Protein backbone atom coordinates (compact mmCIF):
# COMPACT_ATOMS: atom_id res chain seq x y z
CA UNK A 1 0.00 0.00 0.00
CA UNK A 2 1.45 3.39 -0.93
CA UNK A 3 2.24 5.93 1.78
CA UNK A 4 -0.78 8.15 1.12
CA UNK A 5 -3.22 5.25 1.36
CA UNK A 6 -1.39 3.75 4.32
CA UNK A 7 -1.99 6.97 6.27
CA UNK A 8 -5.77 6.64 5.91
CA UNK A 9 -7.20 5.90 9.36
CA UNK A 10 -9.43 2.92 10.05
CA UNK A 11 -13.01 4.12 9.53
CA UNK A 12 -15.10 1.07 10.39
CA UNK A 13 -18.75 0.56 9.53
CA UNK A 14 -20.47 3.03 7.22
CA UNK A 15 -23.66 3.77 5.32
CA UNK A 16 -24.45 5.87 2.28
CA UNK A 17 -26.23 8.99 3.51
CA UNK A 18 -29.62 9.58 1.91
CA UNK A 19 -32.02 12.22 3.28
CA UNK A 20 -34.67 9.51 3.74
CA UNK A 21 -32.32 7.74 6.18
CA UNK A 22 -31.32 10.84 8.14
CA UNK A 23 -33.24 10.02 11.35
CA UNK A 24 -32.22 6.37 11.20
CA UNK A 25 -28.55 7.30 10.85
CA UNK A 26 -28.60 9.72 13.76
CA UNK A 27 -30.53 7.26 15.94
CA UNK A 28 -28.06 4.45 15.15
CA UNK A 29 -24.76 6.16 15.74
CA UNK A 30 -23.64 3.11 17.72
CA UNK A 31 -23.70 1.05 14.52
CA UNK A 32 -22.41 3.71 12.14
CA UNK A 33 -18.85 5.03 12.18
CA UNK A 34 -18.84 7.00 8.94
CA UNK A 35 -21.11 8.14 6.12
CA UNK A 36 -20.59 8.48 2.41
CA UNK A 37 -22.34 11.31 0.58
CA UNK A 38 -23.05 11.55 -3.12
CA UNK A 39 -20.76 14.48 -3.90
CA UNK A 40 -22.97 15.76 -6.72
CA UNK A 41 -25.82 16.29 -4.26
CA UNK A 42 -23.78 19.01 -2.53
CA UNK A 43 -22.44 20.91 -5.53
CA UNK A 44 -24.31 24.09 -6.57
CA UNK A 45 -27.04 23.56 -3.98
CA UNK A 46 -29.12 25.75 -1.65
CA UNK A 47 -27.83 26.73 1.80
CA UNK A 48 -30.15 24.22 3.49
CA UNK A 49 -28.39 21.36 1.73
CA UNK A 50 -24.99 22.68 2.82
CA UNK A 51 -26.26 22.92 6.40
CA UNK A 52 -27.22 19.25 6.15
CA UNK A 53 -23.62 18.50 5.12
CA UNK A 54 -22.24 20.53 8.02
CA UNK A 55 -24.45 18.59 10.44
CA UNK A 56 -23.11 15.32 9.04
CA UNK A 57 -19.53 16.56 9.33
CA UNK A 58 -20.11 17.47 12.99
CA UNK A 59 -21.23 13.92 13.75
CA UNK A 60 -19.41 11.56 11.37
CA UNK A 61 -16.40 11.17 9.12
CA UNK A 62 -17.82 12.08 5.71
CA UNK A 63 -16.49 10.46 2.53
CA UNK A 64 -17.46 12.17 -0.77
CA UNK A 65 -18.46 9.69 -3.47
CA UNK A 66 -18.54 11.23 -6.96
CA UNK A 67 -20.72 9.80 -9.71
CA UNK A 68 -20.36 12.13 -12.66
CA UNK A 69 -16.67 12.70 -13.18
CA UNK A 70 -16.65 10.35 -16.15
CA UNK A 71 -13.02 9.32 -15.67
CA UNK A 72 -13.27 6.97 -18.64
CA UNK A 73 -14.24 9.61 -21.21
CA UNK A 74 -11.58 9.52 -23.92
CA UNK A 75 -11.65 13.31 -24.26
CA UNK A 76 -10.91 13.79 -20.55
CA UNK A 77 -13.04 14.94 -17.60
CA UNK A 78 -14.94 18.23 -17.47
CA UNK A 79 -12.44 20.40 -15.59
CA UNK A 80 -15.16 22.84 -14.52
CA UNK A 81 -16.87 19.99 -12.70
CA UNK A 82 -13.51 18.80 -11.31
CA UNK A 83 -12.90 22.23 -9.77
CA UNK A 84 -16.35 22.28 -8.16
CA UNK A 85 -15.76 18.79 -6.82
CA UNK A 86 -12.35 19.90 -5.54
CA UNK A 87 -13.93 22.81 -3.66
CA UNK A 88 -16.40 20.45 -1.97
CA UNK A 89 -13.64 18.00 -1.01
CA UNK A 90 -11.56 20.88 0.33
CA UNK A 91 -14.52 21.89 2.50
CA UNK A 92 -15.04 18.36 3.86
CA UNK A 93 -11.33 17.47 4.23
CA UNK A 94 -11.98 13.71 4.14
CA UNK A 95 -9.23 11.07 4.45
CA UNK A 96 -10.03 10.09 0.83
CA UNK A 97 -12.76 10.36 -1.80
CA UNK A 98 -14.06 7.97 -4.46
CA UNK A 99 -15.25 7.72 -8.06
CA UNK A 100 -16.09 4.93 -10.51
CA UNK A 101 -14.08 3.32 -13.27
CA UNK A 102 -16.64 4.26 -15.88
CA UNK A 103 -17.82 7.01 -18.13
CA UNK A 104 -21.12 8.86 -18.04
CA UNK A 105 -20.74 11.22 -20.95
CA UNK A 106 -18.98 11.43 -24.28
CA UNK A 107 -19.31 13.64 -27.36
CA UNK A 108 -22.31 15.49 -25.95
CA UNK A 109 -24.19 12.32 -25.01
CA UNK A 110 -25.17 12.14 -21.38
CA UNK A 111 -25.57 8.45 -20.70
CA UNK A 112 -27.31 9.17 -17.42
CA UNK A 113 -25.60 6.38 -15.56
CA UNK A 114 -22.29 4.53 -15.32
CA UNK A 115 -21.20 2.90 -18.55
CA UNK A 116 -18.26 0.51 -18.74
CA UNK A 117 -14.94 1.23 -20.41
CA UNK A 118 -12.99 -1.43 -22.23
CA UNK A 119 -10.51 -3.20 -19.98
CA UNK A 120 -7.52 -2.79 -22.28
CA UNK A 121 -3.98 -1.37 -22.26
CA UNK A 122 -5.25 1.54 -24.35
CA UNK A 123 -7.95 2.48 -21.82
CA UNK A 124 -5.49 2.01 -19.00
CA UNK A 125 -3.46 4.87 -20.48
CA UNK A 126 -6.58 7.01 -21.04
CA UNK A 127 -7.73 6.48 -17.47
CA UNK A 128 -4.24 7.13 -16.11
CA UNK A 129 -4.07 10.45 -17.98
CA UNK A 130 -7.54 11.53 -16.83
CA UNK A 131 -6.84 10.59 -13.22
CA UNK A 132 -3.56 12.54 -13.31
CA UNK A 133 -5.52 15.64 -14.43
CA UNK A 134 -7.95 15.18 -11.54
CA UNK A 135 -5.21 14.50 -8.99
CA UNK A 136 -3.42 17.70 -10.03
CA UNK A 137 -6.58 19.62 -9.10
CA UNK A 138 -7.67 17.51 -6.08
CA UNK A 139 -4.70 16.38 -3.96
CA UNK A 140 -6.82 14.31 -1.54
CA UNK A 141 -6.33 10.49 -2.06
CA UNK A 142 -8.73 8.99 -4.59
CA UNK A 143 -10.08 5.44 -4.55
CA UNK A 144 -11.68 3.84 -7.61
CA UNK A 145 -14.80 1.68 -7.69
CA UNK A 146 -15.54 -1.30 -9.95
CA UNK A 147 -18.99 -1.14 -11.59
CA UNK A 148 -21.49 -3.69 -12.85
CA UNK A 149 -21.66 -4.06 -16.58
CA UNK A 150 -24.11 -5.98 -18.69
CA UNK A 151 -22.41 -5.47 -21.97
CA UNK A 152 -19.14 -7.03 -23.11
CA UNK A 153 -17.25 -4.56 -25.25
CA UNK A 154 -14.94 -5.57 -28.08
CA UNK A 155 -11.24 -4.79 -27.63
CA UNK A 156 -10.81 -6.15 -24.13
CA UNK A 157 -7.27 -7.43 -23.68
CA UNK A 158 -6.94 -7.51 -19.88
CA UNK A 159 -8.65 -9.47 -17.13
CA UNK A 160 -10.79 -7.26 -14.89
CA UNK A 161 -8.72 -7.91 -11.75
CA UNK A 162 -5.47 -7.22 -13.61
CA UNK A 163 -6.89 -3.97 -14.93
CA UNK A 164 -7.84 -2.87 -11.40
CA UNK A 165 -4.39 -3.78 -10.07
CA UNK A 166 -2.68 -1.91 -12.89
CA UNK A 167 -4.70 1.27 -12.63
CA UNK A 168 -4.14 1.41 -8.87
CA UNK A 169 -0.39 0.92 -9.36
CA UNK A 170 -0.12 3.47 -12.15
CA UNK A 171 -2.10 6.19 -10.39
CA UNK A 172 -1.44 5.51 -6.68
CA UNK A 173 -5.20 5.28 -6.23
CA UNK A 174 -6.80 2.83 -3.84
CA UNK A 175 -9.60 0.44 -4.67
CA UNK A 176 -13.20 0.77 -3.55
CA UNK A 177 -14.19 -2.83 -4.12
CA UNK A 178 -17.94 -3.09 -4.60
CA UNK A 179 -18.59 -6.65 -3.53
CA UNK A 180 -22.14 -6.67 -4.89
CA UNK A 181 -21.02 -5.37 -8.29
CA UNK A 182 -18.33 -8.04 -8.37
CA UNK A 183 -20.82 -10.77 -7.47
CA UNK A 184 -23.35 -9.57 -10.08
CA UNK A 185 -20.70 -9.48 -12.82
CA UNK A 186 -19.44 -12.91 -11.82
CA UNK A 187 -22.93 -14.40 -12.22
CA UNK A 188 -23.83 -12.52 -15.41
CA UNK A 189 -20.49 -13.00 -17.13
CA UNK A 190 -19.73 -16.43 -15.61
CA UNK A 191 -16.50 -16.13 -13.65
CA UNK A 192 -15.43 -17.07 -10.14
CA UNK A 193 -15.58 -14.06 -7.77
CA UNK A 194 -13.29 -15.76 -5.25
CA UNK A 195 -10.57 -16.18 -7.88
CA UNK A 196 -11.11 -12.54 -8.81
CA UNK A 197 -10.50 -11.44 -5.22
CA UNK A 198 -7.43 -13.68 -4.96
CA UNK A 199 -6.06 -12.06 -8.09
CA UNK A 200 -6.41 -8.54 -6.67
CA UNK A 201 -3.48 -7.02 -4.87
CA UNK A 202 -4.93 -6.71 -1.33
CA UNK A 203 -2.73 -3.68 -0.68
CA UNK A 204 -4.97 -1.65 -2.97
CA UNK A 205 -8.24 -2.39 -1.16
CA UNK A 206 -9.26 0.60 0.94
CA UNK A 207 -13.04 0.30 1.22
CA UNK A 208 -15.87 -2.09 0.40
CA UNK A 209 -19.39 -1.37 -0.82
CA UNK A 210 -22.13 -3.91 -0.28
CA UNK A 211 -25.94 -4.23 -0.60
CA UNK A 212 -28.38 -6.87 -1.81
CA UNK A 213 -28.83 -7.76 -5.47
CA UNK A 214 -31.93 -8.63 -7.49
CA UNK A 215 -32.71 -10.69 -10.56
CA UNK A 216 -32.92 -14.29 -11.65
CA UNK A 217 -30.65 -16.95 -13.11
CA UNK A 218 -30.52 -15.18 -16.45
CA UNK A 219 -29.45 -11.75 -15.17
CA UNK A 220 -28.70 -10.10 -11.83
CA UNK A 221 -28.98 -6.34 -11.39
CA UNK A 222 -27.85 -3.77 -8.81
CA UNK A 223 -30.95 -1.99 -7.56
CA UNK A 224 -29.52 -1.14 -4.11
CA UNK A 225 -32.95 -2.02 -2.75
CA UNK A 226 -32.58 -5.39 -1.04
CA UNK A 227 -31.22 -6.90 2.13
CA UNK A 228 -27.68 -8.14 1.63
CA UNK A 229 -27.59 -11.86 0.80
CA UNK A 230 -25.34 -14.42 2.44
CA UNK A 231 -23.28 -14.78 -0.76
CA UNK A 232 -22.22 -11.15 -0.43
CA UNK A 233 -21.22 -11.48 3.23
CA UNK A 234 -19.27 -14.65 2.34
CA UNK A 235 -17.35 -12.74 -0.31
CA UNK A 236 -16.73 -9.89 2.14
CA UNK A 237 -15.31 -12.39 4.62
CA UNK A 238 -13.02 -13.71 1.89
CA UNK A 239 -11.67 -10.19 1.35
CA UNK A 240 -11.25 -9.74 5.11
CA UNK A 241 -9.12 -12.89 5.29
CA UNK A 242 -6.66 -11.24 2.88
CA UNK A 243 -6.93 -7.64 4.06
CA UNK A 244 -9.23 -5.84 6.49
CA UNK A 245 -10.30 -2.70 4.60
CA UNK A 246 -10.37 0.74 6.19
CA UNK A 247 -14.12 0.73 5.93
CA UNK A 248 -17.19 -1.16 4.76
CA UNK A 249 -20.23 0.70 3.51
CA UNK A 250 -23.86 -0.26 2.98
CA UNK A 251 -25.09 1.40 -0.20
CA UNK A 252 -28.87 1.41 0.06
CA UNK A 253 -30.87 3.54 -2.41
CA UNK A 254 -34.41 2.21 -2.23
CA UNK A 255 -37.04 0.85 0.16
CA UNK A 256 -35.79 2.94 3.02
CA UNK A 257 -38.83 2.01 5.09
CA UNK A 258 -37.37 -1.44 5.79
CA UNK A 259 -35.23 -0.20 8.64
CA UNK A 260 -34.88 -3.57 10.36
CA UNK A 261 -33.38 -4.97 7.18
CA UNK A 262 -30.94 -2.06 6.93
CA UNK A 263 -30.07 -2.34 10.59
CA UNK A 264 -29.42 -6.10 10.28
CA UNK A 265 -27.06 -5.51 7.33
CA UNK A 266 -25.12 -2.95 9.33
CA UNK A 267 -24.85 -5.30 12.29
CA UNK A 268 -23.51 -8.13 10.14
CA UNK A 269 -20.90 -5.88 8.63
CA UNK A 270 -19.95 -4.60 12.09
CA UNK A 271 -19.56 -8.20 13.29
CA UNK A 272 -17.28 -8.98 10.35
CA UNK A 273 -15.13 -5.97 11.13
CA UNK A 274 -14.98 -7.00 14.78
CA UNK A 275 -14.09 -10.61 13.98
CA UNK A 276 -11.30 -9.87 11.53
CA UNK A 277 -9.98 -6.66 13.04
CA UNK A 278 -9.50 -8.16 16.49
Amino acid at each position, binding site marked *: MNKQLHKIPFLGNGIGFRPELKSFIFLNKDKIDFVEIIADHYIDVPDAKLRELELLMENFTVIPHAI*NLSLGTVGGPDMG*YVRKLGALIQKIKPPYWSEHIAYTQAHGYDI*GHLAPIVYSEEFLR*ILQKNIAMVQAEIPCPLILENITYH*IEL*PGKDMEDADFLNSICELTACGLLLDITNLFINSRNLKFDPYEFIDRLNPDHIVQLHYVGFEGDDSQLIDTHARATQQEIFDLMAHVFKRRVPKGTLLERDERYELLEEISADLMRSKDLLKTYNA
Partner: protein
Amino acid sequence: MKPSEAQQILSRLYTDQVYRKAFLAGKEAFYQEQQISDPETIGYLNALKPEQLEFFAKGLYAKKYHEVMRQMPGTAHLLKNRMGELFRDFSKEPRSYGVHKHHEEALAFMDFIRREEPVSARIRAVLKFEEVLLRNFINPTTWRICYLSYDAPAFLRSLHAGEKPMLQKKCLLIVFRKGKIVRMF
Protein backbone atom coordinates in the same frame (compact mmCIF):
# COMPACT_ATOMS: atom_id res chain seq x y z
CA MET B 1 -10.94 2.05 -34.54
CA LYS B 2 -10.04 4.96 -32.30
CA PRO B 3 -11.38 4.70 -28.72
CA SER B 4 -13.05 8.11 -29.05
CA GLU B 5 -14.98 6.95 -32.14
CA ALA B 6 -16.02 3.74 -30.39
CA GLN B 7 -17.16 5.72 -27.35
CA GLN B 8 -19.14 8.12 -29.50
CA ILE B 9 -21.01 5.33 -31.32
CA LEU B 10 -21.61 3.38 -28.11
CA SER B 11 -22.92 6.46 -26.26
CA ARG B 12 -25.37 7.05 -29.07
CA LEU B 13 -26.41 3.40 -29.14
CA TYR B 14 -27.06 3.52 -25.39
CA THR B 15 -29.11 6.72 -25.40
CA ASP B 16 -30.66 7.25 -28.83
CA GLN B 17 -33.61 4.87 -29.18
CA VAL B 18 -34.14 5.48 -32.89
CA TYR B 19 -30.46 4.98 -33.69
CA ARG B 20 -30.29 1.81 -31.58
CA LYS B 21 -33.47 0.35 -33.07
CA ALA B 22 -32.11 0.91 -36.58
CA PHE B 23 -28.86 -0.84 -35.61
CA LEU B 24 -30.66 -3.80 -34.07
CA ALA B 25 -33.15 -4.08 -36.93
CA GLY B 26 -30.46 -4.75 -39.54
CA LYS B 27 -26.78 -3.94 -39.35
CA GLU B 28 -26.13 -3.81 -43.11
CA ALA B 29 -28.90 -1.30 -43.71
CA PHE B 30 -27.75 0.65 -40.65
CA TYR B 31 -24.16 0.90 -41.92
CA GLN B 32 -25.43 2.09 -45.28
CA GLU B 33 -27.77 4.63 -43.77
CA GLN B 34 -25.11 5.95 -41.37
CA GLN B 35 -22.45 5.86 -44.10
CA ILE B 36 -20.22 3.56 -42.06
CA SER B 37 -17.81 1.82 -44.43
CA ASP B 38 -14.60 1.46 -42.39
CA PRO B 39 -14.06 -2.32 -41.98
CA GLU B 40 -12.62 -1.84 -38.47
CA THR B 41 -15.70 0.07 -37.31
CA ILE B 42 -17.99 -2.51 -38.88
CA GLY B 43 -16.01 -5.32 -37.25
CA TYR B 44 -16.29 -3.56 -33.88
CA LEU B 45 -20.03 -3.05 -34.17
CA ASN B 46 -20.59 -6.60 -35.42
CA ALA B 47 -18.86 -7.88 -32.29
CA LEU B 48 -21.45 -6.24 -30.01
CA LYS B 49 -24.03 -8.69 -28.70
CA PRO B 50 -27.48 -7.29 -29.56
CA GLU B 51 -29.22 -8.77 -26.50
CA GLN B 52 -26.59 -7.26 -24.17
CA LEU B 53 -26.86 -3.86 -25.86
CA GLU B 54 -30.64 -3.91 -25.57
CA PHE B 55 -30.55 -5.03 -21.93
CA PHE B 56 -28.01 -2.37 -20.96
CA ALA B 57 -29.81 0.42 -22.84
CA LYS B 58 -33.15 -0.55 -21.32
CA GLY B 59 -31.56 -0.57 -17.87
CA LEU B 60 -30.22 2.95 -18.40
CA TYR B 61 -33.63 4.10 -19.57
CA ALA B 62 -35.37 2.54 -16.56
CA LYS B 63 -32.95 4.23 -14.16
CA LYS B 64 -33.48 7.62 -15.84
CA TYR B 65 -37.26 7.21 -15.72
CA HIS B 66 -37.14 6.19 -12.09
CA GLU B 67 -35.04 9.22 -11.16
CA VAL B 68 -37.33 11.59 -13.06
CA MET B 69 -40.39 10.06 -11.36
CA ARG B 70 -38.75 10.75 -7.99
CA GLN B 71 -38.49 14.44 -8.88
CA MET B 72 -42.17 14.76 -9.81
CA PRO B 73 -44.15 12.19 -7.79
CA GLY B 74 -47.37 14.22 -7.77
CA THR B 75 -47.50 14.64 -11.54
CA ALA B 76 -46.56 10.97 -11.99
CA HIS B 77 -49.40 9.95 -9.64
CA LEU B 78 -51.96 11.97 -11.56
CA LEU B 79 -50.77 11.04 -15.05
CA LYS B 80 -50.70 7.31 -14.19
CA ASN B 81 -49.65 5.16 -17.19
CA ARG B 82 -49.60 8.18 -19.48
CA MET B 83 -46.46 9.33 -17.67
CA GLY B 84 -44.49 6.37 -19.04
CA GLU B 85 -45.80 6.91 -22.58
CA LEU B 86 -44.86 10.58 -22.46
CA PHE B 87 -41.41 9.82 -21.08
CA ARG B 88 -40.86 7.34 -23.89
CA ASP B 89 -41.61 10.04 -26.45
CA PHE B 90 -39.53 12.59 -24.56
CA SER B 91 -36.54 10.20 -24.47
CA LYS B 92 -36.43 9.74 -28.22
CA GLU B 93 -34.21 12.79 -28.39
CA PRO B 94 -30.92 12.43 -26.46
CA ARG B 95 -30.01 15.41 -24.28
CA SER B 96 -27.07 16.53 -22.18
CA TYR B 97 -27.29 17.85 -18.62
CA GLY B 98 -25.09 19.33 -15.89
CA VAL B 99 -24.34 18.38 -12.29
CA HIS B 100 -28.00 18.04 -11.31
CA LYS B 101 -28.82 15.79 -14.25
CA HIS B 102 -31.94 14.18 -12.78
CA HIS B 103 -33.40 17.52 -11.71
CA GLU B 104 -32.55 19.05 -15.08
CA GLU B 105 -33.99 16.10 -16.96
CA ALA B 106 -37.19 16.34 -14.90
CA LEU B 107 -37.46 20.06 -15.74
CA ALA B 108 -36.94 19.34 -19.44
CA PHE B 109 -39.60 16.62 -19.22
CA MET B 110 -42.00 19.02 -17.51
CA ASP B 111 -41.52 21.44 -20.42
CA PHE B 112 -42.18 18.57 -22.81
CA ILE B 113 -45.43 17.63 -21.04
CA ARG B 114 -46.61 21.23 -21.12
CA ARG B 115 -45.88 21.44 -24.84
CA GLU B 116 -47.14 18.04 -25.94
CA GLU B 117 -49.95 17.02 -23.59
CA PRO B 118 -53.25 18.85 -23.06
CA VAL B 119 -53.36 18.21 -19.30
CA SER B 120 -56.19 19.27 -16.97
CA ALA B 121 -55.96 22.34 -14.72
CA ARG B 122 -55.39 20.14 -11.65
CA ILE B 123 -52.43 18.33 -13.23
CA ARG B 124 -51.08 21.67 -14.46
CA ALA B 125 -51.16 23.01 -10.89
CA VAL B 126 -49.22 20.05 -9.46
CA LEU B 127 -46.76 20.15 -12.36
CA LYS B 128 -46.20 23.86 -11.79
CA PHE B 129 -45.61 23.43 -8.06
CA GLU B 130 -43.18 20.55 -8.56
CA GLU B 131 -41.38 22.59 -11.19
CA VAL B 132 -40.99 25.50 -8.76
CA LEU B 133 -39.61 23.12 -6.11
CA LEU B 134 -37.02 21.84 -8.57
CA ARG B 135 -36.07 25.34 -9.72
CA ASN B 136 -35.71 26.35 -6.07
CA PHE B 137 -33.27 23.48 -5.59
CA ILE B 138 -31.16 24.17 -8.65
CA ASN B 139 -31.30 27.94 -8.44
CA PRO B 140 -32.61 29.17 -5.08
CA THR B 141 -33.21 32.84 -5.86
CA THR B 142 -33.82 35.16 -2.92
CA TRP B 143 -37.51 35.46 -3.72
CA ARG B 144 -39.83 33.37 -5.88
CA ILE B 145 -43.62 33.55 -6.10
CA CYS B 146 -45.95 30.83 -7.30
CA TYR B 147 -49.70 31.12 -7.93
CA LEU B 148 -51.77 27.92 -7.92
CA SER B 149 -55.45 27.17 -8.48
CA TYR B 150 -55.28 23.83 -6.63
CA ASP B 151 -53.77 22.93 -3.26
CA ALA B 152 -50.75 21.09 -4.67
CA PRO B 153 -48.67 21.42 -1.44
CA ALA B 154 -51.31 19.54 0.58
CA PHE B 155 -51.63 16.97 -2.20
CA LEU B 156 -47.87 16.29 -2.13
CA ARG B 157 -47.80 16.16 1.67
CA SER B 158 -50.51 13.49 1.73
CA LEU B 159 -48.73 11.56 -1.04
CA HIS B 160 -45.44 11.57 0.88
CA ALA B 161 -47.24 10.52 4.05
CA GLY B 162 -48.70 7.50 2.25
CA GLU B 163 -52.25 8.78 2.77
CA LYS B 164 -54.96 8.87 0.11
CA PRO B 165 -53.99 12.01 -1.80
CA MET B 166 -56.72 14.63 -2.24
CA LEU B 167 -56.32 17.55 -4.60
CA GLN B 168 -58.68 20.36 -3.57
CA LYS B 169 -59.52 23.39 -5.66
CA LYS B 170 -58.04 26.33 -3.80
CA CYS B 171 -56.35 29.54 -4.88
CA LEU B 172 -52.90 29.83 -3.34
CA LEU B 173 -50.15 32.39 -3.54
CA ILE B 174 -46.88 30.91 -2.27
CA VAL B 175 -43.83 33.00 -1.45
CA PHE B 176 -40.42 31.32 -1.36
CA ARG B 177 -37.29 32.85 0.13
CA LYS B 178 -33.99 31.18 -0.76
CA GLY B 179 -35.86 28.07 -1.80
CA LYS B 180 -38.05 27.74 1.30
CA ILE B 181 -41.76 28.54 1.63
CA VAL B 182 -42.10 31.57 3.89
CA ARG B 183 -45.72 32.58 3.27
CA MET B 184 -48.78 30.95 1.77
CA PHE B 185 -51.95 33.01 1.17
